[in-house]
């Protein structure tokens, strides 16, 4: 069949369709006037040509009615039209089923639009398909906004990713810095202790040796605080109980006496890091006092208690020793450290002596160290 005869057939079919409706037929009028682009095709003619199109369809596609009649709808397809979408439409028409398909179409001037296409078969009384009715909806605007949204979302995700990467790098740098500072502080504390030890070793003067040993004892307690702080996973907390246990075992073992008995009643008592030093020095003074007053010379018993009791936090050291004279200056220095540290944390000190048994009890309200403390 020639191009012309093809179009003639389509025109005839279109006219026949219109003639079957009286001119005032509201459905035909609505079809022509609606802003929804619509076409009708005739599947009984070869290649299912368009036999009718409305004005809205011409406005959408740029083709006049004359240019459309007799042509197959594929004239709207172009290079970027998805062949799979075309195939789905073709298959629905072959099976005479309604189909809804989003498809990229081309106008007469070559520009593209996104078409939400809906095609449904129209059947006669015998049930044969006599027409296909197709409506189009240009949703390029929606597609565009979707694309804009997707691109905005992608940009936001990229920003988040970039900032997360930056934050992670900053955190890594900070962690490295903390480790570096921790390493320096530990090495410096050990260097300070080593300098004191060296001078004590070189000195032949008993008083100098003892004085340096006395300073070393407190410096080492500070070193142990730092070591314990960073050993725990939570660097903001310090366990006074754990500190006391290690200190007393270390100090007493180093005396190399088998006539000393240690007993302990120690629970974990976590305190904020800024309370670690005064509390650790208090423990250190109490244990050191017992050692100086006779434990190192004649052995004996030492009992260490660190726990919560009736809303209070107590550190207590009892010793049973054969008393020996203590250097008064050393004793004064020890008392000064103890009292000053107790003052800092708001603790009271009670000292009780019964025969050869001495108990020093340091009590502070849990509220004074409450932040982060637990028993």
């Amino acid at each position: 069949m020639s191009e012309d005869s093809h179009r003639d057939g389509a025109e005839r079919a279109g006219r026949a369709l219109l003639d079957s409706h009286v001119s005032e037929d509201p459905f035909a009028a609505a079809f022509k006037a609606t802003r929804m682009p619509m076409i009708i095709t005739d599947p009984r003619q070869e290649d299912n040509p368009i036999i009718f199109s409305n004005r809205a369809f011409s406005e959408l596609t740029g083709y006049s009615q004359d240019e459309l009649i007799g042509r197959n709808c594929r004239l709207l397809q172009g290079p970027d039209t998805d062949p799979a979408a075309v195939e789905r439409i073709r298959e629905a028409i072959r099976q005479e089923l309604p189909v809804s398909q989003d498809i990229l179409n081309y106008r007469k001037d070559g520009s593209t639009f996104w078409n939400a296409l809906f095609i449904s078969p129209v059947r006669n009384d015998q049930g044969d398909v006599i027409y296909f009715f197709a409506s189009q909806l240009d949703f390029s605007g929606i597609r565009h906004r979707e694309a804009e949204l997707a691109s905005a979302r992608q940009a936001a995700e990229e920003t988040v990713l970039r900032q997360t990467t930056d934050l992670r790098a900053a955190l890594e740098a900070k962690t490295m810095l903390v480790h570096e500072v921790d390493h320096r502080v530990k090495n410096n504390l050990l260097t300070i202790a080593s300098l004191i030890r060296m001078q004590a070793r070189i000195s032949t003067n008993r008083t100098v040796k003892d004085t340096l040993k006395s300073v070393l004892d407190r410096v080492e307690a500070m070193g142990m605080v730092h070591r314990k702080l960073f050993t725990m996973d939570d660097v903001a907390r310090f366990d006074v109980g754990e500190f006391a246990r290690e200190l007393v075992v270390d100090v007493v073992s180093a005396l190399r006496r088998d006539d000393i008995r240690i007993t302990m009643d120690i629970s974990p008592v976590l305190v904020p890091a800024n309370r670690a030093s005064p509390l650790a020095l208090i423990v250190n003074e109490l244990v050191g006092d017992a050692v100086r007053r006779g434990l190192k010379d004649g052995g004996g018993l030492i009992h260490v208690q660190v726990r919560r009791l009736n809303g209070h936090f107590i550190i207590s050291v009892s010793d049973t020793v054969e008393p020996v004279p203590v250097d008064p200056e050393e004793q004064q220095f020890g008392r000064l450290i103890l009292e000053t540290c107790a003052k800092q944390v708001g603790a009271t000190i009670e000292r009780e002596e019964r025969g050869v048994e001495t108990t020093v009890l340091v009590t502070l309200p849990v509220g004074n160290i409450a932040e982060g403390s637990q028993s």
Partner: protein
Amino acid sequence: MNILIVEDEALLALELQSELEEAGHHVTGHAMSMGEAVALAEARRPDFAFVDIHLRDGPTGIEVGRILARDNIPFVFVTGNLKRIPEDFAGAIEKPYSQNGLHNALAYISALLRHADWRVHHDPGRAPPGLVPAPACIRA
């Protein structure tokens, strides 16, 4: 014991050497880098080694430890950062250690190494608090 000190801080090494000698041991060498440590370990065959992890050429103490373990030389790490030590590796004396802590650790180690089959006698539960035991502690 003949002891090798692997430590890049000269003052700390000197003080540790004094402590060891005072306790009746002999310091057979002092290395500040991995290369020195490995050379001294081969040349002097020490009975024991103290190994700092951060040396002059970086955190190479771990590798020194591996080589000592391969050569059957028992050792402990001496470090401020216990987290650097691989699990199931060696035990450690944590910096800053106290004189008492060091004495106690040393006493435990030298008593242990008097046994030819010292591994059998090692009990992490009885190690002094200054000696942080890895599961294999002072291993070789």
